[in-house]
C-alpha cells in the first residue's frame, strides 16, 4: 500500500461515521419558499400571472420615486436609488408604454411620503460582489417591503431606512453572485435619519462589539467595501448623500473603528468609480419569470457608454442588444433596452449586462440575473 493510499484510507475512515441529517425538505423549501412568508426571496405570485413587462414597471416605478427624492442634491446623486430615466430614453415602445404609465403612481409625492401604506415598496440594497479584476465592488439590487409595520411619524423614510440597512447586513442577496460580508458578524440596533438643530443626522447603530477590528482573513479592501455597503444603502434609502454616523455597541464610548475603518467622523460615500460596479442590472430581479417583451434597465459607466445586453444558455448568446448609458464623471448612467423574449425557447436563462471591452483583455465588467422565460 502506498503512502497516498494510506492517507486516502485514513481520511475516508475519519468521516465514515458521519451520517448527516436529511435536509432535502429544507432545501426544497428554500428554493420554493411560500411567498407569503418570505415576500422578497423569490418572484411574487402576481409576476407569474402578469409577466415581465409588469415586473419591470413595478421596479421602474420605484426607481422613479428614488430619483425624485434626490432632485436638488449634488451631482453624484443620479446613481442613488437607481438613477433611471425610464420614459424618453427608451427605444422599446411595447414594454415601456406599460412602464411609463405606471411610473406615475409610486413617484407621486403622496406615495413617497407615506411608504407604509403601499404595503409593497421596493428599495435599494447594496451588496459586495467582484468586478472583472476580482476586486470587491458594490452591486445594487431591489428588495420589496416593508416587513416592519411601524409608522414613520417623521416622514423621513426611516422604515425603509431600517429595512434596507437590515437587509444589507443580514439578508442574503437575491443574486447569489453577491454577498454580505456582515452575515453573522453584526446586527442592526437601529438606523435613523433625524433633524437636530439646523442639521440632519443619518445614523447606523450596530450591536456587536466584536467588529471594531477587521478579521485577519478580511482584506482592507473588503472591509472598506463592507462599510461602504451600509453607507450606500442608507443614503439610497433616504435619497440623500448624507454622511453616516456609525456607532458600535451599546456603551456611550464604543469602539472608534468598524472593521478597522475609522468611524470617529461621519463617513461619506466612497467615489462611485472605485466603490460601485461599473455595470449593474436594476430590473428584472434574480429569479423573475418573464415573457414577451422584457424591459431591462440598469446603470453603467463604460467606454463610450456602451454595454451589451443578452440572454445566455448552454454557452450560446441570444437577443444580443447594445445599450447606451454614459462615460466619465463620478457617477453611473441609466440605460434601458427591450429584449423580445418570445423569440427564444422557454426555460431558464442568464441575463447578462456586459460593459464594452475597450481594453480587449477579454474581462469586461458584467452583472447577471438568472431569469425564467415562459
Amino acid at each position, binding site marked *: 500500500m502506498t503512502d497516498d493510499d494510506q492517507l486516502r484510507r485514513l481520511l475516508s475512515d475519519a468521516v465514515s461515521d458521519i451520517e448527516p441529517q436529511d*435536509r432535502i425538505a429544507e432545501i426544497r423549501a428554500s428554493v420554493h419558499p411560500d411567498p407569503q412568508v418570505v415576500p422578497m426571496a423569490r418572484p411574487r405570485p402576481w409576476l407569474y400571472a402578469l409577466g415581465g413587462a409588469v415586473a419591470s414597471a413595478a421596479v421602474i416605478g420605484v426607481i422613479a420615486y428614488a430619483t425624485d427624492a434626490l432632485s436638488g442634491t449634488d451631482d453624484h446623486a443620479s446613481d442613488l436609488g437607481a438613477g433611471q430615466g425610464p420614459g424618453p430614453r427608451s427605444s422599446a415602445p411595447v414594454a415601456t408604454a406599460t412602464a411609463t404609465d405606471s411610473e406615475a403612481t409610486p413617484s407621486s409625492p403622496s406615495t413617497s411620503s407615506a411608504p407604509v401604506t403601499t404595503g409593497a415598496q421596493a428599495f435599494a440594497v447594496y451588496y459586495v460582489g467582484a468586478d472583472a479584476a476580482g476586486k470587491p465592488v458594490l452591486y445594487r439590487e431591489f428588495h420589496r417591503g416593508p416587513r416592519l409595520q411601524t409608522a414613520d411619524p417623521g416622514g423621513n423614510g426611516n422604515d425603509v431606512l431600517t429595512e434596507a440597512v437590515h437587509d444589507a447586513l443580514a439578508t442574503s442577496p437575491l443574486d447569489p453572485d453577491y454577498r454580505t460580508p456582515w452575515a453573522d458578524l453584526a446586527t442592526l440596533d437601529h438606523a435613523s435619519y433625524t433633524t437636530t438643530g439646523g442639521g440632519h443626522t443619518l445614523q447606523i447603530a450596530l450591536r456587536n462589539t466584536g467588529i471594531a477590528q477587521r478579521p485577519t482573513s478580511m482584506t482592507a479592501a473588503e472591509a472598506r467595501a463592507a462599510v461602504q455597503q451600509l453607507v450606500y444603502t442608507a443614503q439610497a434609502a433616504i435619497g440623500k448623500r448624507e454622511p453616516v454616523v456609525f456607532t458600535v455597541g451599546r456603551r456611550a464610548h464604543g469602539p472608534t473603528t468598524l472593521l478597522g475603518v475609522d468611524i470617529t467622523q461621519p463617513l461619506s460615500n466612497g467615489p462611485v468609480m472605485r466603490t460601485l460596479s461599473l455595470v449593474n442590472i436594476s430590473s428584472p430581479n434574480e429569479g423573475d419569470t418573464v415573457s414577451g417583451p422584457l424591459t431591462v434597465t440598469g446603470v453603467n459607466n463604460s467606454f463610450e457608454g456602451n454595454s451589451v445586453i443578452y440572454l445566455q444558455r448552454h454557452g450560446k448568446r441570444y437577443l444580443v442588444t447594445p445599450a447606451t448609458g454614459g462615460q466619465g464623471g463620478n457617477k453611473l448612467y441609466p440605460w434601458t433596452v427591450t429584449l423580445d423574449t418570445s423569440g427564444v425557447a422557454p426555460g431558464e436563462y442568464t441575463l447578462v449586462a456586459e460593459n464594452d471591452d475597450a481594453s480587449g483583455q477579454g474581462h469586461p465588467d458584467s452583472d447577471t440575473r438568472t431569469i425564467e422565460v415562459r
Partner: protein
Amino acid sequence: MPGVTNGWSADEALEVLYVAHWRRLVRLAVMLLHDQGAAEEVVQDSFVAMHSKWGRLHDPDKALAYLRQSVVNRSRSHLRHLAVVRRHAEREGAPPDEAGADHTTYDVERRGTVLDALRGLPRRQREVLALRYYLDLSEAEIADVLGISRGAVKSHASRGAAALRAVLGPMLEETR
C-alpha cells in the same frame, strides 16, 4: 415550473444531485470544519445556490464542480466567522470550549486524531488534502475548485501530506 427544453430542470437536478452527493459533501465539509451541524448548513446553502444557478450550469458535472467550490468557499467563510466570534469571546472573558469527553472507543479516537491533524494544518493544505484524498480529485480539478495554479496545488499537497504523516506516523505504520 416549465422545464428547460433540453435535459433536467433545476428542480430535477437538485433532487438527483442531492441523492448522489449530499452525504459525501457533508463529510467533506466536516473535514474542513470539524463540526457536523455547521457542515450540514454549509452544504445545504450550497445546494440552494446551485439550484438558483442551474440555468447557467445546466450540466450535472458543472453543477457538481460548483457544489464543491461552494462548499469549500462557504466553509472558509464559516471559519473566518468563527475566528471573529472566538476573538470576541476571548475579549469578553468567555471560557474556552471543553474538550469532548466521550471519545471512548479506539475507532472514534483514531478518527478524531485524523480530523484534529487536518484541523492543525494551514487552510489551503487542508483543502487540498481533503479534495485530493477524500474526493479523489485530480490536480487540475483541485486547481479549479480553489482558484489556484496546479503548481500551487502540488506544493500544498506535498507539504500537507508531509505534515499529516508527521502527526499520524504511528497510525500509518499500523495500516501497512
